[in-house]
């Protein structure tokens, strides 16, 4: 495989990883702070994508669409937290899984009811639609590069938010002991709503960005949700750093595996079965990666011990 192609695939892996990070960061934040497993996180991703597509189509501006995706997902997240999630913190994970599974059904069918079953398409803003020449003779789509940059910026922003701000201190304190934090005068209910809305907004942002690369349709959130789970299992639940490392590992493994494995197998067997076996194994690679991490560290790379 020529070097330029390899670099291009590595960039694809990086872009995919950054997108997964946006999903996984929200999930891991919500789990870390509130101990809640939220299956409907994928629905928030879908809501972001639909909001972006609808607003971009109505106004002709991708940037307004992007803002709408953040706002719509955050609003949906806050609403869901106030109406449903709030009642689930004290319940066991089983009830949380079931209730948020029910939310997926409601959101998916609701979206289908409003937008119909046909996919929507989002176009890339003009100044990001072309390719960019990178050193080493590689040309790469500017928009995908922008996703990488946005992902990195969000990662830095989150590290700053959690590590350096008052809100971050409260989030970390709430993670450690919510009764004491509440006793110290922090409105824990409002804090939880804010954290949930923040996680939702990140999912919505991911949805809008990915909706531009793929298409926007009902059910788009669930495959990504499961990958985000794999990411936080690998990275360790509750750790933003774990989510970043896990996301990049998963993104790279998946992309490079799919690109390299069939041709690597073709060296030792006939091309058609190499292709079949290669693509089948490549689609399982990240789960194999997860299994290996679990065998070595059941609590994930940066986890605090399995809960």
């Amino acid at each position: 495989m020529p070097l330029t192609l390899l670099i291009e695939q590595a960039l694809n892996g990086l872009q995919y990883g950054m997108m997964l990070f946006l999903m996984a960061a929200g999930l891991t934040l919500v789990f870390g702070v509130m101990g809640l497993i939220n299956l409907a996180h994928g629905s928030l991703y879908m809501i972001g994508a639909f909001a972006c597509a609808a607003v971009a189509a109505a106004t002709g501006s991708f940037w307004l669409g992007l803002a709408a995706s953040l706002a719509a997902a955050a609003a949906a997240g806050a609403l869901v937290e106030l109406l449903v999630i709030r009642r689930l913190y004290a319940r066991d994970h089983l009830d949380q899984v079931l209730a948020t599974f029910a939310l997926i059904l409601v959101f998916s069918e609701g979206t289908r009811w409003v937008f119909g079953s046909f996919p929507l398409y989002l176009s890339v803003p003009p100044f990001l639609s072309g390719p960019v020449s990178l050193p080493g003779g590689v040309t790469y789509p500017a928009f995908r590069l922008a996703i990488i940059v946005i992902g990195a910026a969000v990662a830095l922003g989150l590290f700053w938010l959690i590590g350096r701000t008052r809100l971050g201190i409260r989030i970390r304190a709430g993670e450690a002991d919510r009764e004491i934090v509440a006793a110290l005068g922090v409105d824990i209910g409002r804090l939880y709503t804010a954290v949930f809305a923040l996680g939702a907004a990140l999912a919505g942002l991911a949805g809008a960005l990915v909706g531009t690369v793929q298409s926007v349709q009902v059910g788009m959130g669930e495959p990504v949700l499961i990958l985000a789970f794999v990411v936080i299992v690998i990275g360790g639940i509750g750790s933003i750093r774990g989510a970043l490392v896990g996301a990049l590992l998963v993104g790279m493994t998946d992309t490079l595996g799919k690109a390299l494995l069939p041709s690597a197998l073709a060296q030792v067997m006939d091309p058609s079965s190499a292709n079949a076996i290669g693509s089948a194994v490549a689609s399982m690679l990240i789960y194999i990666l997860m299994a290996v991490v679990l065998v070595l560290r059941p609590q994930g790379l940066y986890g605090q011990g399995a809960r």
Partner: protein
Amino acid sequence: MARAGLADALVLALLIGTALTAQFMGQPYLVTLATKAAILGLAGVGLNLALGYGGMVSFGHAAYFGLGGYAAGVLASHAMSGQPLPFGFSGTNQMLAIWPVAMILSGLAALVIGALSLRTRGVYFIMVTLAFAQMLFYFAISWPAYGGEDGLSFYVRNSFPGLNTFAPLQFFAICAGLLMLALGLTAMLTASRFGLALQAARQNPGRARALGIRPFPLQLTAFVLSGMITGLAGALYADLNRFVSPAMMSWQMSGEIMVFVILGGVARLAGPLAGAMVFILLEHLLGGVSEHWLALVGLLLLAIVLFAPGGILGLAERRRHG
């Protein structure tokens, strides 16, 4: 306890009564619906063993359901084409041969997945079982030999000695018979030393250990049995539809099986069956009202989780207590 036994008997009687009445009224479609409820209920009975009695929230039971289905589909399609399987095995269309294969295959998968997943607890366990099921789902999708994404049709229902499996009521009898066997096995297991130790390990792992009960082997055994029962249900489901596809392994399927258990009542013998019956009834009734019936199911489910923990059987019991 006796009250719970009565509720279980009632649920089972309702299922069998529905099928017999439908047959008598000349409504074979309703017999098939009852068969579907029996099969999905059986899948739920399998999951209940792990989830209800063992406290292992597996979100990946569709993997075993699908593996059982593919065992039936692959064996039947090889029997049809006459092509031998690898290692010189031949295909078969005999249910009595297919069922053990389905159960062994899903049991082996449950052994590997369970052994790895049980290294973790709580929410990790949920996600890890889910992820392993997804791994098999993607494998089924990207493996072209047995239809890949399109699934595998085998046109003719497999046969059972002495019965005509095409007659709706006779196929129902097979499925309901296996369901009753599984219910009996579950009742026996949960009342046995094994079952009591398993429930002790769920309720308080620390104390169970102090009593000399090691949770891991108990839980793994329950997980494997659970996967085998769900795998058997998968083989029957494949026969019901004469079709298998990766959708049987999808995470929505895992969610649905879990919904049956929780809708009906966790760790209640006939809970999963009650849940499956209600789910199918809703699908049948609401599906006629609106094409967006799943949203209504979602809202109902939400209401049950938030306001009626314990499921339908729990609700019925509470009401009777006044």
